């Protein structure tokens, strides 16, 4: 039904998102995007709604007389427009302009073709729209259902797969429908379906534009009927969703900080790219869920670990409301009792959430991030008293961690969740599946049991933060948490130092240290476990070329026997690891090195058209098995800019701002405007001599610049002394 494409994709992928839907395309005209995934090409183009992949590649074929064509074959040029993407095509005397936009109210994508002819007689143009239905949440990456139900009605064709559904609407009624490329009269169909097609005929006369609008929307079938009027409005006025999206994006952007680094324009560009890319991951897909998607194209669901990393940046960008709603979403799915079939233990937070609601547990670390996130949110937004609901949730999180903790050492045990799920479901199904993934920390495709160092650091941070949030409790819970944190800190300091390597062990298994050089150990440096001299030594070790490459930091040293440049977590370069290295370098005073790491990340954003690959091969700067956009790859970069490069620490509860910039000695200026601190906004203008602070209020802001402290009254400007760069 669709002629083969004639041109290879050249530019970066095109991603159009609303908070409930997305279009993924390669920029040649159709919604198709062939991308390498796990070593093989997979076409990820199509429409996504409510975290459900609705369609495979969605193509429009052209026919006039005896000639067949396609949008990619007739492609002239393309450009983004506010809220959408536009392509221009010329074929057989027809001038065609296509606009594509994601739609939030009815989760889907609208395509509008405006066709005209310069001269000649009026001619009919036949457009055939076709796609393979998917209708399964993207979290099940490897399966496309084959059996569907199709129903025609006056205004739409509805395709269903169990409780998932999609609706196809158009401003022009189709002349003919096709199922599996065979003509179909309509009505009701149930069975194997590999492709559905719709043929539209448009008379195109000179000096008059004919318009065809197509809307594919869906997700949960039960929500489609509720959005009927919205769907009708989109088809009648297809320009409205893009305009609304553009306005919302603009308002959001104007509410975020403006960061300027005149001495490092690449970092300034990196900030702009990262901020814009993070916005594309915002999601509110339905079922009262709010969050950010982990990435595109194959991780477009709410992964709660990834969300925690992203929300730290969202807080720095000042979007407290989104962060608050996102945390609330995750806490709502905290397990209150053991749910072995979903991998859940009491108190655990979910690994993933998707509308349905569909959710799974089974990670060793996701839960540990949330006390930190809650504390950060309170600190930035100025909320003094945590809600009782959140405090209880934090108590359950810590109890979950304590149940996994070895009393003798204070170490938290990671791993074993996937095996537990497999055991729990063994006798329940006729067909059984599994991924032999013994460990489920951030590097979940390698085995870092039983006490991965970064997980221990996270556990320590979680305990200390939870104790601070709880304050003094009558049951002694906070004191117990503090004691456990102290005990654990002692264990980390004494047991994890790998003297012969000048680094830190990766983990302990059966009491034996795992002698593997991984970037995860740098989290202990960032957390401040070691004195400056030792911390710098660890950072310098990680900077050696067995771990650090010109395109980022490997997940494992290339000198390790396990190293494989194509292995996800045993050799590939991950941008989040590069951000950890930047963070640790800046935290330990290795300023130039830290800025180099940040510049490496920013250079990748530039090369990737503003997107941020998940990972790269370990032996060359080539994305491999990599989403083209991953929240992990942008958010830690943003957070590091604020927390380490600018050295900012906000506590709006007490009206304090700490600013200890770690800029290179050659820098002469830097500034931030519109940085949220509680209900106010602060602007900082740095030069080697001083830091100028402008504060909107309310209340007085006390700013500690490292070499002096100043109280800034609302609406006023003050200077504070800072420590000069070395």
């Amino acid at each position: 039904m669709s002629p083969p494409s004639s041109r290879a994709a050249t530019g970066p992928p095109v991603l159009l998102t609303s908070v409930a839907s997305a279009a993924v395309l390669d920029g040649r005209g159709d919604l198709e995007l062939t991308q390498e995934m796990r070593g093989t090409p997979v076409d990820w183009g199509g429409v996504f709604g409510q975290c459900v992949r609705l369609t495979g590649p969605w193509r429009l074929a052209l026919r006039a007389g005896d000639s067949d064509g396609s949008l990619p074959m007739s492609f002239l040029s393309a450009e983004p427009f506010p809220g959408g993407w536009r392509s221009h095509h010329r074929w057989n005397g027809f001038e065609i302009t296509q606009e594509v936009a994601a739609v939030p109210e009815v989760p889907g994508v609208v395509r509008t073709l405006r066709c005209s002819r310069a001269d000649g007689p009026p001619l009919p143009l036949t457009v055939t729209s076709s796609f393979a239905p998917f209708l399964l949440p993207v979290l099940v990456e490897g399966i496309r259902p084959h059996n569907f139900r199709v129903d025609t009605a006056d205004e739409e064709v509805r395709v269903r797969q169990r409780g998932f559904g999609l609706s196809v609407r158009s401003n022009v009624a189709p002349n003919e429908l096709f199922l599996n490329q065979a003509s179909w009269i309509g009505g009701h169909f149930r069975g194997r379906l590999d492709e559905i097609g719709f043929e539209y005929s448009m008379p195109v006369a000179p000096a008059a534009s004919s318009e065809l609008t197509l809307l594919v929307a869906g997700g949960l079938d039960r929500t489609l009927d509720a959005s009927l009027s919205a769907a009708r409005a989109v088809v009648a006025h297809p320009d409205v969703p893009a305009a609304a999206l553009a306005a919302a994006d603009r308002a959001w952007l104007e509410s975020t900080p403006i960061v300027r680094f005149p001495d490092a324009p690449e970092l300034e560009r990196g900030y702009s790219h990262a901020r814009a890319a993070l916005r594309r991951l915002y999601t509110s897909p339905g079922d009262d869920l709010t969050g950010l998607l982990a990435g595109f194209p194959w991780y477009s669901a709410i992964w709660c670990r990834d969300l925690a990393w992203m929300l730290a940046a969202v807080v720095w960008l000042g979007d407290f409301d989104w962060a608050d709603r996102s945390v609330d979403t995750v806490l709502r799915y905290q397990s209150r009792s053991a749910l072995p079939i979903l991998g859940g233990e009491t108190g655990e937070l979910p690994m993933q959430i998707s509308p349905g609601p569909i959710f799974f547990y089974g990670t060793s670390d996701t839960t540990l991030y949330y006390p930190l996130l809650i504390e950060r949110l309170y600190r930035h937004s100025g909320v003094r008293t945590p809600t009782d609901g959140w405090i209880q949730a934090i108590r359950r999180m810590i109890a979950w961690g304590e149940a996994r903790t070895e009393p003798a050492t204070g170490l938290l045990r990671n791993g074993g969740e996937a095996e537990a799920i497999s055991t729990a479901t063994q006798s329940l199904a006729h067909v059984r599946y599994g991924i032999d993934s013994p460990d489920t920390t951030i590097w979940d495709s390698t085995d870092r049991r039983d006490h991965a160092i970064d997980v221990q650091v996270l556990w320590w941070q979680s305990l200390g933060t939870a104790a601070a949030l709880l304050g003094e409790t009558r049951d002694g819970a906070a004191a117990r948490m503090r004691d456990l944190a102290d005990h654990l800190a002692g264990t980390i300091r004494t047991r994890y130092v790998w003297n012969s390597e000048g680094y830190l062990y990766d983990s302990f298994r059966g009491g034996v240290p795992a002698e593997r050089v991984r970037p995860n150990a740098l989290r202990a440096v960032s957390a401040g476990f070691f004195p400056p001299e030792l911390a710098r030594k660890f950072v310098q070790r990680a900077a050696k070329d067995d771990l650090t490459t010109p395109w980022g930091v490997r997940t494992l040293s290339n000198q390790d026997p396990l190293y494989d440049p194509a292995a996800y977590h045993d050799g590939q370069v991950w941008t989040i690891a590069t951000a950890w290295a930047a963070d640790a370098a800046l935290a330990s005073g290795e300023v130039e090195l830290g800025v180099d790491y940040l510049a490496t990340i920013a250079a990748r954003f530039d090369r990737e058209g503003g997107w941020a690959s998940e990972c790269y091969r370990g032996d060359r700067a080539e994305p491999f098995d990599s989403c083209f956009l991953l929240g992990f790859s942008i958010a830690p970069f943003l957070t590091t800019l604020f927390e380490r490069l600018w050295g900012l620490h906000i506590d709006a509860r007490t009206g304090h701002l700490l600013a200890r910039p770690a800029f290179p000695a050659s820098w002469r200026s830097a500034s931030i405007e519109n940085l949220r601190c509680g209900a106010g906004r602060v602007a900082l203008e740095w030069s080697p001599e001083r830091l100028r602070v402008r504060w909107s209020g309310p209340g007085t802001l006390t700013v500690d610049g490292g070499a002096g402290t100043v109280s800034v009254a609302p609406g006023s400007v003050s200077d504070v002394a800072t420590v000069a760069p070395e």
Partner: protein
Amino acid sequence: MGTHQLGGVLSLLRQGLTLGVQFGTHSVEALLWVAQTVEEGVYVPHSLTRTVEGIAFTLDNPLLRVGAFTSLRLRIDGTDVAGEFVRLRRGPGTPWRTAASIGADSSYALAPGDRTEFDVVGAFGHGTEALTVRLELRSPAIPPLVWFEFTETPSEAPSAP
């Protein structure tokens, strides 16, 4: 039903009720949609048949994960079947290859929706006894093994006309 199975069913019931009470019945329903799709989306039900030389069966999708797989191991009733006795192809009219031919330089690629027909040579079980078939695929990109297992009584292949 044995005690072990009864325990499993009761545990499932308890967990289902817990889910329903804590997160709502929509959630139980939606989780079931996914579970059913996964359970029915890969193995083509009742495709396990006895053939003249052994057994055959068909998959309609990759096992949970897509990718270029560099090894494929088949076990029947807990016993490995040598790779040269396992043939696979996309469907009628496409060439067969053996599991032994799959390696780092000649991977077997599976994208969503890809079908694979298996034809296995050997003597497996007896008559109407159920067989447990286990497949293990390894990806170089994401190292952990992906596996899939089902137990079914093979039907007799229809005799040639």
